């Protein structure tokens, strides 16, 4: 899922200053799971901001709403009849949701309430870590299901590099060397022979280097 983290309240306060009617818009998908922008976070942020404005003696009406998703037309349409009532929308969705809402409601300021971090997994309670960089051409079949693109600092495809020490990466002693993990897993699967197979030069044109990406599926279009 997409991992995001809450922006500091101080930053949000400075972003929304000047707006008199604000809608805080949460998203029920990834940001709910990583506890950054779901219904609960919308409630807490709205309450904190209301208290801030009361304390400062400023007027700002804050409403709350959480959509099923902010990256789909059908759910974003749910706020069409109310969007004109607000000076701005503070979206707690990931960067995708904020932009999609901004595209849909062209004349309403859309402000981000979270920082979108990465595509990751919930490693343990309160800890999320990157697992994919959406490079567009998956190499996991050749790397024992462990991604050297997202988990190796150098994105080395025939590793490890010389910076791997005791299974840890040179950039951080707490960071596992992705290639150590790959070798360990190949060993466990009794497929260490695969390690000898050299990866050819990867086509990075499907990564960000090729510009913004798009998937068009005519077979499912109506």
């Amino acid at each position, binding site marked *: 899922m997409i991992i995001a983290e809450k922006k500091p*309240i101080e930053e949000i306060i400075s972003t929304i200053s000047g707006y008199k009617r604000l809608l805080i818009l949460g998203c029920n998908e990834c940001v709910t799971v990583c506890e950054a922008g779901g219904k*609960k976070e919308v*409630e*807490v942020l709205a*309450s*904190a901001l209301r208290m*801030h404005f009361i304390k400062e003696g400023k007027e700002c009406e804050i409403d709350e709403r959480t959509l099923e998703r902010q990256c789909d037309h059908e759910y974003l349409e749910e706020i069409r009849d109310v969007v004109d009532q607000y000076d701005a929308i503070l979206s707690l969705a990931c960067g995708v949701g904020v932009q999609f809402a901004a595209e849909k409601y062209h004349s309403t300021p859309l402000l981000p309430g979270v920082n979108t971090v990465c595509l990751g997994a919930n490693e343990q309670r309160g800890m999320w870590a990157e697992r994919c960089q959406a490079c567009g051409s998956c190499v996991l079949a050749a790397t024992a299901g462990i991604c050297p693109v997202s988990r190796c600092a150098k994105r080395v495809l025939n590793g490890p590099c010389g910076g791997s020490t005791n299974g840890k990466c040179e950039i951080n002693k707490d960071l596992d060397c992705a290639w150590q993990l790959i070798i360990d897993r190949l060993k466990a699967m009794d497929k260490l022979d695969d390690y000898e197979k050299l990866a050819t030069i990867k086509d990075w044109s499907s990564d960000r280097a090729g510009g913004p990406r798009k998937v068009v599926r005519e077979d499912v279009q109506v």
Partner: protein
Amino acid sequence: MRLKCPANFRIIRLPCTGKLDIIHILRAFEKGADGVYVVGCMEGDCHFNTGNFRARKRVEQAAKILDQIGVGGERVKMYNLSSGEGPLFAEYSIEMDKIIRELGPSPIGTALKKKANAA
């Protein structure tokens, strides 16, 4: 036991402090409360194992938010006692009353009263 304790707090019962959410604490302040304290079972004695630990974390999160918006995180506290410790409950309420009196009224409550008087 006829224990003496301040009469200026309202008890809100929870099935377990694990039921407590940050928003419950914040709403109390939004409505003008000067302080909130949560009383859970002794750590390690939770019937649901982690209820009181979760509550403590949420109290800490609420305190952080209250600090960030200038209300003051010291206005919210977590206490632990066993259900047989009535005197300790009274002691904690006296302690909390003292802390809040030293801190003075919450800026939210003051602003709300000012707004109501102006209206």
